[in-house]
């Protein structure tokens, strides 16, 4: 079992310009902006489960990312 990040679409405000998780995720090409749904999207195979995205999203009070176990 390992932990990966998951975006809760309904809470994500990427549509309003938020890019915090995309900008601070240490891994390249791992959180992408989904142009169709206009939300942030985690590419699970690349995620190392470091939780930094959760920290930046929740300190901005969006609480739109959690870690889930696979």
């Amino acid at each position, binding site marked *: 079992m390992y932990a990966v990040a998951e975006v809760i679409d309904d809470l994500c405000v990427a549509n309003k310009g938020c890019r915090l998780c995309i900008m601070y995720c240490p891994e*390249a090409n791992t959180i992408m902006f989904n142009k169709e749904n206009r939300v942030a999207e985690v590419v699970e195979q690349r995620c190392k489960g470091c939780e930094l995205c959760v920290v930046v999203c929740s300190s901005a009070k969006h609480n739109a990312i959690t870690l889930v176990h696979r």
Partner: protein
Amino acid sequence: MGKEKIKINPEFYDIMPVEYQELVEEGTYGKEDRGWKDVGESKELIEEHSLCAGCPESIAFRYVLACLPAPEDTIMVGSTGCTSLVFPHVAVHNIHSLFGNQNAVASGLKRALSYRFPDKVKDVVVLAGDGATVDIGLDMTLQSWFRQEKFTTICFDNELYANTGGQSSGLMQKGFVAKMAPAGKKFDKVNLPEIAKVSGCHYVAKMTVSKPNRVEKAIRQAILIAREVGPTYIQLYTPCILEIGKQMMEGLQEMRDSEGPNKRFEFEEYISEEAKAYLETIDPKKKKKKAITA
């Protein structure tokens, strides 16, 4: 030049790895105004690598690669250390040099490129850890600055030898205790930005990587100045969360805590008079103004 060099022959398209196809379709080679804002909506020039989860060096790599003004005409020179675990997964030409030799290798490379491609701009960018830059490679680092070699040196300063388990480096803080430095660092953190200024660098900047727009501006200026004026140096704080006992998600906070007023990574920038004059000539806003007044 853009993507000319990496275009896939249509006959072979379907057998190329998907990561390569993505680079060709969505990579930002040749994009005039490329920068950190491209991340998340384009293919970054960096693939999966083995740095620790949450490592700030990984964040710094993303910004540096997103901000190179011309990645298709850039050759990076790396050295041994955690950074060297990333270079094999970077989609920009790069050379791995023997530990400490990076600035000597870059000097030869830059000169060879200017003979081989006299009509083209080729950027050479060194990217190495603090052990490589300020201890074992200090001779090569300084000599390249004295000789006014036209390339940029970027130091990922994590204040110790991370890749070998936490020995002390010249850039470690005085008194700091690490796993392989149990007695504590005996002397002050070497002030390499100050040394860079008096050794002939035309642009020097020191910062953490907590603000990507600041990193972008520094990288662009350093590379443009190195093309025309002379050597440039950027020191980025990329804390080794593993060796300083931080959790995976604490790297960003560690950087923010270290960059406040009078802290050791408070933002500092130096631009020589010659470099300032050069930047004025290429500033699009100033150019426009001139055109209007003329």
